[in-house]
């Protein structure tokens, strides 16, 4: 009985002691995570290849005249354009040079400049001034007029009144006469100058020479410009242009073959000269891959390799521009066969000939804005075939944060490569990873495998829809570790159009291919 109270006392003590033992241990002094596997999935990259962007780049587009034109039906036409040659009217408008001209007699036929074979019968002054300089050493004051028979305005011929004081030392200068809006009309490229001077007694005099051979009367033209010129243009030839057009599409480093359906060369002339002009094609040849000359033979020109340019006719088409377009294609030339050999450039030379027919009745005109412009372009509608049209591109690589990962914690990785191809082109691809020395370390696909991006379904030569493909690339941690340290890679690609490159397809500006990649990383801890 004595032990009973003791037991009663011990009971709570035991309870308290057991509670304490359950609570007093520190379990967190050495805390470690349990070994386990986890798997994380996240995207790596995505890229969209638009055919238009692709072509701009892949064609090594460095010439400013090259244009990729997207047609209304989204087909694309590649234009290679040469420099535009221009023959402006200013070449002709030097007919009335500024400066002094002597008048050796009271009536003088003044011959003005005109191009060979050209007879000016009407010229309209846009600007200009005229006055007379007279050395009066007659001993008397003189009065009178100066007239030009052919220069008129509103039916009045040009007349300048003269009051010439006697001054053997200093010449007399008449008031300046503004020629703006006055018109010169002549049938023989001459102007008739007449001066009449009288003494106070009414005696007409002729101004003597200042010295032998030097006239005492000068007419001075200043700042003469014409806005219109009309007359007869005789036969004359002159160089228009010589130029070279680079065909970049055949100058890339890409391998394989590409065939263009119906290539064209177009010559476009814009002519506002108002008289017949003929172009003479002195030289027109492509240059092949090996530098060989391949003449472009066509029936589009006259037999003597000339083209008659359209022109505005006198008198109803003054100020208009007439266009002449000559297209050389597979129907009228050998261009198709030339393009099968992938020429690299086109060289051409053209001369201009006025009144090539020597017609004496041709009356023509020029305005101050008249010109002949001539351009040549190579026009390639991007419809064709390609087979193993490929290249190798070396790129820098940057794995960013992946380069710093502790790969001892990585068990394996799995890349997921997805392609969504809406182009009519199939492509295969391989990536080879290089070390700093440029040596191949590994490749994305092993054992000769490649990722193949099949073309979109083709309907009537046009891609319709999208072909999606998924490729999974397993990779051990060791391989991943090796690859993520590389800084360069070579991307090997080749393109083949539908059905093995045998069926021509149209490349549309809307055609795109999406390539994207994700990764699953399995970790171990």
């Amino acid at each position, binding site marked *: 009985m004595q032990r009973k109270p003791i037991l009663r006392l011990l009971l709570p003590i035991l309870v308290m002691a057991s509670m304490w033992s359950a609570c007093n241990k520190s379990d967190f002094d050495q805390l470690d995570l349990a070994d386990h596997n986890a798997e994380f999935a996240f*995207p790596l990259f995505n890229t969209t290849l638009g055919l238009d962007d692709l072509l701009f780049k892949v064609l090594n587009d460095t010439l400013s005249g090259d244009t990729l034109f997207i047609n209304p039906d989204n087909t694309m036409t590649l234009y290679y354009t040469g420099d535009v040659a221009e023959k402006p009217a200013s070449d002709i408008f030097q007919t009335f040079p500024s400066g002094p001209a002597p008048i050796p007699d009271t009536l003088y036929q003044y011959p003005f400049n005109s191009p060979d074979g050209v007879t000016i019968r009407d010229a309209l002054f846009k600007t200009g001034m005229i006055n007379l300089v007279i050395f009066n050493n007659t001993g008397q004051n003189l009065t009178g007029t100066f007239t030009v028979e052919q220069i008129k305005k509103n039916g009045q011929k040009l007349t300048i009144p003269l009051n010439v004081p006697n001054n053997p030392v200093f010449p007399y200068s008449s008031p300046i006469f503004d020629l703006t809006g006055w018109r010169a009309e002549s049938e023989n490229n001459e102007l008739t100058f007449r001066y009449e001077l009288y003494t106070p007694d009414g005696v007409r005099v002729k101004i003597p020479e200042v010295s032998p051979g030097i006239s005492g009367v000068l007419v001075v033209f200043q700042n003469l410009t014409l806005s219109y010129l009309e007359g007869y243009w005789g036969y004359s030839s002159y160089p228009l242009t010589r130029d070279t057009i680079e065909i970049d599409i055949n100058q890339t480093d890409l391998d394989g073959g590409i065939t263009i359906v119906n290539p064209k060369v177009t010559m476009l002339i814009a002519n506002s000269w108002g008289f017949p002009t003929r172009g003479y094609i002195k030289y027109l040849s492509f240059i092949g891959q090996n530098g060989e000359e391949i003449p472009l033979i066509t029936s589009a020109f006259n037999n003597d390799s000339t083209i008659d340019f359209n022109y505005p006719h006198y008198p109803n088409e003054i100020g208009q521009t007439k266009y002449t377009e000559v297209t050389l294609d597979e129907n009228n030339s050998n261009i198709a066969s030339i393009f099968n050999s992938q020429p690299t450039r086109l060289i051409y030379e053209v001369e201009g000939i006025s009144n090539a027919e020597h017609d004496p009745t041709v009356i023509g005109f020029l305005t101050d804005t008249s010109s002949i412009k001539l351009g040549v372009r190579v026009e390639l509608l991007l419809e064709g075939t390609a087979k193993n049209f490929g290249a190798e591109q070396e790129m820098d690589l940057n794995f960013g944060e992946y380069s710093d990962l502790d790969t001892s914690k990585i068990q394996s990785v799995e890349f997921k490569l997805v392609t969504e191809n809406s182009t009519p082109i199939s492509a295969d691809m391989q990536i080879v990873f290089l070390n700093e020395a440029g040596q191949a370390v590994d490749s994305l696909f092993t054992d000769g495998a490649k990722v193949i991006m099949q073309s979109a379904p083709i309907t009537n030569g046009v891609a319709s829809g999208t072909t999606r493909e998924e490729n999974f690339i397993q990779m051990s941690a060791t391989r991943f570790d090796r690859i993520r340290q590389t800084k360069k890679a070579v991307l090997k690609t080749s393109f083949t159009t539908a059905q093995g490159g045998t069926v021509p397809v149209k490349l549309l500006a809307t055609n795109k291919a999406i390539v994207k990649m*994700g990764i699953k990383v399995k970790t171990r801890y």
Partner: protein
Amino acid sequence: MKIKYISALLVLLAAAKVNAQQEMMLNSLQNLWHSNTSTNPAFFPENKHFVIGLPAYSIDAAHSGDLTYKDIFRKDGDRTIVDFDNAISKLDPENDLNFDQRLETVSFGFRSPNNKWGFQLGHAIAFSGALTYPKALPELLWNGNASYIGQTVEIGLQADIADWHEWSVGVMRQFGPLNVGVRAKYLTGISALRTDDDRHSMSIYTDPDIYQLTLKTDYAFYSSSIISAIDTADLGFDITLDALGNKLRSKNNGIAFDLGGVLKVGERLTLDASVINLGGLIKWKNDPRYFQSKAEYTYSGSTIPGEDILNGSDSLDFDTKLDTLNDIFRFSQTATDAMETRAPMRIYVGGTFELTKHWSVGLTVFHQKKDRDSNTAVGASVRWLPLKWLSLGAMYGVNNRSAANLGFHVAFTPGPVQVYFLSDNLLNAFALKSSPAANLRAGLALAF
């Protein structure tokens, strides 16, 4: 990588460390002073007129499901291994963690010689919290997102956490067999964090295409004196905590009331009822902030210009910019004057019947109401007084979580000393590491 494990660890560690406490056992021990300060202001130790309450500590916590400490931690020699595989398997799709902790620092009680009047003063520090988190959150952090490809995973957790000081003044009055008490409590908030009930969504979607990640947030929470800034500029969450402090006074004020009554019915039967923390509301004025994140961002990996690939003009850059991904959680903060928290309201109704001088039985009904949930428990107890200064007892309780709770108590009351240890769940108390819940209380008082 470290951040995610720490986050997961914290969630589950918290779940394992806190236990469950209803304090029904304490309510059945009217003779202990702390039953006055904690469960019923009308209680007062019998035949005592002056009481000094010394520190008492209680904790009441539970995690939903069967998750226990041992499910997370296991020993390997001297090392403790954190293994979430087993723990995650025991989680429900949605998991709740509730915890209440109370530290009664000091209190005083006076009762008039004729027992008609009684007075009480006291101070305590209370902590109340509730967390709700989806199983997907630790699973995503521990196992990775690969198993969730093609699924939208909701990972937002909800929290309602606060701690505060209680300054109490109480009075009791005896009307014959009826003793009633009322206590007013002045609450001064220490810190609080509460997610916005209408905005607690964080989701992540892993696209089956190439695993593009879409993160979407509409998440907001209030914080006072806990978090002052969240920086998501780099990978991870750089959380700036307010300076830790536990000032007795603050601008976070509130009031609560405790009401109670004890009725002796005859010589052997005693009935009691009380409401604790009635109207308990703290308005947080000490730099309360409203943090919010509302964004949607899809990370598709690096975008590489296609022409660069073909042209070889630039590098193929796989840099992931994952910090950008993380940065979509960018939290903005604004000052707010709308931050309030409620102290959990508790209701006790009970009765004891004295069988003999040494044996008595009792019944207690308990109900607790928090903002987001409530729980109810019923306990039947038996008490044995083998010695005048020793009390032992047991209680069978049923609550929302379990119908198999066996509580106990042991109390020593030699002379003026009151020392006790009790729990509403005996098994939890002695096997904290293998139970998903715990309920403990221990305290000391001097009653003269």
